[in-house]
């Protein structure tokens, strides 16, 4: 269970990433953010985002048409 949740379903690139970056500002180091997205590009986008920002992609799964990511703020 993540500490915070961000619903960006229906939003296109690059809004899911921009909104996640903004939401992570409110997550303390060590805390987690769950992101719900429907943009099919978001799977690879969040992998790259976490790699370049140093945050940890704890989980990347699919639930129906929704991509679910859990990011730990490092």
């Amino acid at each position: 269970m993540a500490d915070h949740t961000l619903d960006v379903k229906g939003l296109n690139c690059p809004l899911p990433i921009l909104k996640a970056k903004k939401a992570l500002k409110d997550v303390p180091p060590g805390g987690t953010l769950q992101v719900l997205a429907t943009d099919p590009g978001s799977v690879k986008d969040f992998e790259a985002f976490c790699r370049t920002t140093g945050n940890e992609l704890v989980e990347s799964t699919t639930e129906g048409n929704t991509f679910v990511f859990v990011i730990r703020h490092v």
Partner: protein
Amino acid sequence: MASAPLYILLCSGEHEKLQMAAMMASVGAVSERAVEVFVSMNAILAFDAGTGERYKGGTFSALMRERRAPDAITLFRQGRELGDLKMWACSMALDVAGWDMDRLEPDLFDGPLGLTKFLSDAENGQFVTL
């Protein structure tokens, strides 16, 4: 290792190219990458604070409006808010258009800049022209 800074030379006034520049700049900035955008030629016209019809483009421009793609100016603003994104207005373009900085969208640009300085700064970065 930190990514090389990204330098975007934005000259086109086409909506599609403005949109791609805004997407690249904002994503780069929130990915912990320093980004600088130099706006010149027809592109500067899209940043006119007083314009009503800002974007001119082709098929994809129409599709982006129809599908309510995120506004390019908004993306630039978000990049500045969330990351290290600087924007410069080409001093030559301002002079030729007879504009000063007050004519441009407020709180979006860091100031006027010459091309020589921009190219000098970009020597060790990744350079993209649109």
